[in-house]
């Protein structure tokens, strides 16, 4: 019952964050779109390399690994990626992401429990992204570019906790996968800001929901052609 309530609370937090960040993003987008991306400016799709950094909140679902049950506090995620975009909005990127959540409570099988510790993951991912062609569908919206994507990769995970009797340390190495969706908005000719959501699963126990804001830099962009 307690776990169920925590899942509901986590979902509420995700929705709240999404709402606040979306509002902020749309307000900024509206203001800056007028300034930078008028019809004579540079915001045109181009095949190019890009780099991205992303940071935000990470929500890790409760886990029950064999007979150790754990719940987690809201944590953080920070990621960086290098990618290449082709025409038609298809992009391929290599991503490194680091996620860390403090443990709210962990039960050690036969050895009591703890309210301390953390779980962290380093993910090495290959992602395929697709910019949805809203303009060709006739529903362009303030130069906001929505995108979706998916990735596969490998997770290096580490959980650490302790109480007065034991020190818990466990490492796992797992294949992982993720789905993502987001919105990108050009703030300069070679720079975009993004708002993203990622669902990331590492192994069969760890389900992450990440919401963050990113900054994309496009290399060799052709200003004012």
């Amino acid at each position, binding site marked *: 019952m307690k776990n169920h309530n925590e899942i509901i609370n986590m979902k509420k937090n995700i929705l709240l964050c999404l709402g606040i960040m979306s509002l902020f993003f749309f307000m900024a987008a509206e203001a800056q779109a007028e300034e930078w991306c008028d019809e004579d400016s540079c915001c045109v799709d181009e095949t190019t390399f890009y780099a991205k950094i992303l940071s935000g909140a990470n929500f890790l679902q409760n886990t029950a690994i064999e*007979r150790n049950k754990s719940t987690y506090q809201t944590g953080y995620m920070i990621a960086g990626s290098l990618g290449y975009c082709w025409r038609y909005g298809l992009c391929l990127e290599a991503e490194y992401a680091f996620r860390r959540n403090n443990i709210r409570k962990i039960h050690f*099988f036969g*050895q009591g429990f703890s309210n301390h510790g953390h779980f962290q993951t380093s993910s090495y991912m290959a992602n395929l992204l697709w910019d949805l062609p809203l303009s060709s569908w006739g529903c362009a919206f303030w130069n906001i570019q929505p995108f979706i994507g998916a990735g596969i990769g490998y997770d290096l995970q580490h959980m650490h906790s302790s*109480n*007065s*009797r*034991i*020190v818990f340390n466990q490492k796992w190495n797992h294949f992982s996968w993720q789905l993502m969706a987001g919105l990108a908005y050009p703030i300069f000719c070679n720079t975009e800001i993004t708002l993203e959501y990622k669902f990331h699963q590492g192994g069969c126990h760890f389900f992450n929901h990440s919401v963050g804001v990113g900054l994309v830099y496009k290399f060799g962009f052709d200003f004012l052609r």
Partner: protein
Amino acid sequence: MKIKCITLALVTATVNLFGGHSSPYRCEMSGNELEADIIVVGGGAAGCIVMNQLSEKGQFSVIGIEAGPNLTNDPAIQAVGLPAFLLAGTGKAKYFWPGWNQTLPMPGLNGRTSDWTTGMLLGGGSSINGLYYGRGSNAMYSLWESISGSSNWSLANILATFNALEHYQGLTITPGARGNKGSLSVLQTPTISQVTTQVLLPASQAAFPGIPTVLDYNDPSVQNCIDPRAQWFIDPTGTQRASSATAYLNSTVMTPEGQGVNGHKLFMLFNSVAVKIIFDKHGRAKKVQYIKDGKLFEARAKKAVVLASGINSSKLLQLSGIGPSQALKNAGIKPVFINENVGKHLQNHPLIFITLVANPAENGIPPGAPYAFTINSVYLPVVGGSSSDPRMLQILFEYIPANALVPTPLVAVGFDLLNPKSEGSVTIQSDNPFQIAAADDGFYQNPVDLENMKNAVKVYIRDLLTQLAIIEPPFYLPVPGDPIYGVIFDGFSDKSVEAYVKNNSNLSLDVHHFTSHCKMAPLNAGGVVDGDTRVYGTENVFVADDSICPVIPDINTAAPAMMIGLRSSQILKRVLHK
């Protein structure tokens, strides 16, 4: 006020810096498993010492698995004197292993069984035994090196280990022959009782004329002897039991809950029964399964598993797939290594009691030593042998004051065969770890043992009773109804003596001196472990308890078990650091 606070802070910091305090050791855990370098199974007479020694100075992390609780502070356990709970039937069943109640019927005892109750608490048998301290003779220990095939167990190494163990307070014969810096308090009875001086000592000296009366029956130079001053597992004040738990797992080593302090990387699991060792395909032990509160757990051993479980060591090996092929097959256990010697070659001391009526006018309690209920000890060679021959018989005289149940003071004369050749066995019956193993002491299966015991009755006991009868008649005669009267009235005939021996060995009190069922010897000579105490067929499983004795010690086996614990620890430190 500020100055006071600053002073207090400085004092506290200084105490913490130099006071040797450390936070209790916390065990590593990964997944569902606790893990450590070494898992020691059994916190008994030997196991407590192994746990202490291997975990000290943080050289190895150690998980200790003990089936019983830590009752070191239980007043009944601390008490000295005649232990009222030597038998489970006295209402202290909580101190004893359930399931080991009875052996198989033994032909040597005319089909009777023997009670195998053993201690199930920290300290094991050393926490519940009769407190009598004995090392054993040089003649017996000098066999250990040749039988084990290893100089690890030379007589010199064994004597040095006893010295390292002991903090002896008593009379000595040979300077430096006894230890005085060890952790284990050994207290010699400082006085001699009136009953001993006036009756038991003169009767013994008259009955056994070639046997010297000595100051210290544990001196390495002493073989057979008469000694009126028993030595005890008792603290220097004479008020509390000294066990391997109080000596080696006390508050300077661990918390009452079992977490190591002062540099000991020790983590105890109490009330936890080890049920199986898990091996990889190369014969390397990886984990130990144990049951606590009805749940099955596993603990991971990174370097080694050490069994110090006493009578359960050979049982646990068999449950883990190391044992006789037929036993494993019958139990449905997949073999890890077939060794027909596991559980075999068990030895024990058959014991007979004769109860005498003491003179109420004489005090049997040594002055100032109310704990000293054994008031005379005699060690004898085979009948017709000399005082320097190997020991064959131990006679202990125990004084029982008059009480509500016994209106007259008594002297119990217990005599047991110290050098049995007979061998018993421990064999599992199924893969259920809680099912009692099929076991027996094998008493008198070797005709030499029966002959030795019969001769002891015919000569030693007859002569002793004769001498006792003439000192203060009608006192110091056997109580009416004592079975020895049947032998006396029959003129100590061979037939009546044999019947007496078979019918009365281990009748009123069983001896819990089980040894040698994981014998240390070459594999083709009956061995289960080698001279490093490593179990044949495994890389990293060791046994360190009385079960590895190459031959049974010719004395009570608690002190030899502690010697084995300490000596094995020294060997294991060297082996595991390689």
